[in-house]
C-alpha cells in the first residue's frame, strides 16, 4: 500500500487530509511540526509527502531542503496558504514536486 506522510500543524486540516487520503486507500501517517515530520519520514519512508509550508520548529521549506539535500527522491507536495509567485518558485526550487494552494478542493488534492 502506498504510504503518505502528511505534515500539517492545523488539527482540522490534518484530520480532513488524513481521512480523505485514507478514503483513497493510502496508508497515512501524520505529523504536526517539521521536526516530527522529519522523524516520521526517517521511520516510515513514505512514498509521498504532503507538506505544509508554515510549521512550528522547522518550516516546510527548510524540511524540503533538508530532505532533498539528503538525496531523498520521494515526491513532495507543498501545501500552503501563501499564493505568491515567489513562494511557489522558492518551494519548487528547493525540491518540491507540486504546489497546492489553500483553500483547495478534495478533487484538486487527490488528482
Amino acid at each position: 500500500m502506498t504510504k503518505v506522510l502528511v505534515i500539517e500543524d492545523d488539527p482540522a486540516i490534518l484530520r480532513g487530509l488524513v481521512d480523505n487520503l485514507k478514503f483513497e486507500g493510502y496508508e497515512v501517517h501524520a505529523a504536526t511540526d517539521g521536526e516530527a515530520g522529519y522523524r516520521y519520514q526517517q521511520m516510515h519512508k513514505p512514498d509521498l509527502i504532503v507538506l505544509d509550508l508554515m510549521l512550528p520548529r522547522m518550516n516546510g521549506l527548510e524540511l524540503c531542503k533538508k530532505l532533498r539535500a539528503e538525496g531523498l527522491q520521494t515526491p513532495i507536495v507543498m501545501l500552503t496558504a501563501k499564493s505568491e509567485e515567489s513562494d511557489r518558485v522558492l518551494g519548487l526550487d528547493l525540491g518540491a514536486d507540486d504546489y497546492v494552494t489553500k483553500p483547495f478542493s478534495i478533487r484538486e488534492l487527490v488528482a
Partner: protein
Amino acid sequence: MAYRTRARQWLLILIAVLLPAGLLIGLARRLIRQESELARTRAAEEHRNAVDQLGRELTARLEAIKLQEINRWIRVPAVPGAHQPPDAALVFVAALDGDRMVLPWESSGVVASSPGFVDLRRQGEVLEFLEKNWIAAVDVYRRARDAARRRPETCEAMLLQGRVLAKSGRTKEPAVIYHTMMKDCDAAVDEHGMTFSLYAAERLIESRNERAAYDYIIERTNRVRWIPLYEAYLIRSLLKSAGGRQAELARDTISRRIAEMDQVIGLTRQFHRVRPLAEDAWAAYGPEPWLISVAPAEPPLPSLVFVVSSEAASSKAVPPSAALVAKDTPNSEPLGDGFHGLNVKWPPGQFDVRAGAASTPLYAAGIAFILGVTILAAYLLLRDVNRDLRMAEMRAHFVASVSHELKTPLTAIRMFADTLALGRARDERARSEYLETIVNESERLSRLVDNVLDFSKIEQGKKIYQMQPASLADVVRSAVRAMQYPLAQQGFTLNVSIDENMRAFPADADAMEQAILNLLSNAMKYSGSARQIDLCLKSAAGEAIIEVTDRGIGIDPREQPRIFEKFYRSGSSERIAGTGLGLTVVEHVAHAHGGRVEVRSLTGQGSTFSIRIPVSTSEAPA
C-alpha cells in the same frame, strides 16, 4: 530588500548629513581663511600706521623743541640759563665752533690769576711744604685771601688756609672755613672745572664725617644738571660712605650723570661722523639714543646742535611697553624717514594676527552646533523612515498573515464540505464530526474577522464600546465555551477559576469576550509542547482581574514592551501563525474600560497576561 533599504538609508545620510556637513566645513574653512587674510592685512596696516604716526608725532615734538630753542638763542644768545634746558626732553643745545661743539657748561677759558695772589700762594706753599712753618703759612694764605680779586682766588685761598690750619693741629677753625666755603664757593671752579665747595665738603667728610657735607653734596647733585666728569667721580666716591635714602637716590643720579657725561664725551669725539647725518635729519646716538640735529646759521649767529632725549621726547607718542632704540637692537625696526639710526621696538605680540585666531573657535562652535542639529535632524529622519519602513514591513507581513489565517479555517471548511458533498464520510458519527468542525472553523473565521474589523475601527477611531451592566463571570464562561473545541482538538486542559461574587459593572461584554478569546488563543499558540492553560477571574484592590496563564515559550524581556504594538510579532513567534493584532485589541479594550493589561513572563516558563479593570464598589451584585 534589506540591502536596498540600507543603501537608501546611507544615501539619505549622505544627502542629509555628510554633504551639508562637508559643504559647511568647506565654507567655514574658507571663511576662516578669508578672515585670517583680512586680519593679517589689517594687522600689517595697523603696524604701518603705528610706525608712521609715531614718526610724525616725534618729528613734530622735536621740531617744536628745536624751534623754541632757536628762538630762545636768538633772543638771549649765550644766556647763562642754558644750563637748565626749559624742555625736559632737551638734553642740551651746543653752539658749533667749526666742527667742535662748545658745550654750554664749559668754562670760557682759564682766567689768569692776579699776580699778587699768585705770589702770596707761592710763599705760603714754600712755608707749608718746605719749611713746615704752618703758623707763618696761615698768615700768608690769609693775606692771599685778602689780595684775591675774584671768587675762585678767594675760595682757593680759603682752601689752602683750612689745609694748613688742620696741619697745625687746629680742628675748629678749618671746619668753620669749610662750612663757609660750602655756602660761598658753590659757583667758583678751579682750572679743572671742579667747584671749590666740593673740596671743602670732601675735607669735612674726611676729617669729621660731617652730615652737613653729605647733605650739601646730595643737594648739589640734585640741583646741577651737568656736573663735570672729575667732579662727578668725586661725588660718587664721597657718597659711597653716606647713609640714608636721599644718599641712595643721589648715588643713582650721579651714576646717570656720569653715563650721560660719558655719552656727551663720546658724542663730542664722534661729532664729525654724526654731523652730516644730523644736518638733514634727526640722527640717533648712543645706546639709549639721543637725537641730534644741527641747525646751520649764518654768522654772527653760531650753528646750533640740538641734543634731545628720544625717551623723554617720545614719552607720549610711544606706548608704554614700546621703546625707541639704536638701530642695531634686535627685534626692532627703523622708524622711517626723518631719522637716522633710530629704531622702534614694539612689545611682543603688539601686531599679532589675532582676529582670525579669535574667530576660529566661534566658527568651530557654529559648525559643531549646525552639525549637531543636522545630525539630530538626520537621526530623527532616519528613525522616522526606519519606523515607517518597519511599519510597512509589518503591514505587508500582516496582510500575508491575515491571508494565511483566513485561508486556514476556509481550507478546513471547504475540505470537510467537499468530503461531505462527495459522500466520503465513513459513517454518521464522522459526518456529525465533520459538520461540527465546519461550525467551529466558521466560528474561528468569525473571531478572526471580528479582530480585523475591530482593529480597523480602532485604527480609524471609530470603535464604539457599548457599555452596559455586565457580569464578567458570564463573559468568561462564554469565552471558555467558544474555545472548548479548539482547546480539546489540540489536547489542551483549561483550568478555569471564577469569582462568582463579582459585581456586575458597565462593560462591553462582546469586546471583553473578544479580549479573553485573544488571550486564550495566544496562550494556545505559544504553549509549545505544554498543554495546560489557566484562566482566572478574580477581584483585588477594587479591580476585576482576568488572568490567562500558559506554561509555554515565554517572551524575551527585551520584547515585552513592544508586544502590544500593532502588527508586532516577537522573534520567537516567527514560525507561529498570527496577525500581530490580538494584543493590540486586548489593550485597547482594557483601556476603553479604564483598565490596563499587564504581562509577566519568563522565557521558557510561560506567560501570564492580566486584564485589570477598575470596578466601582457601589454597583449591585450580579
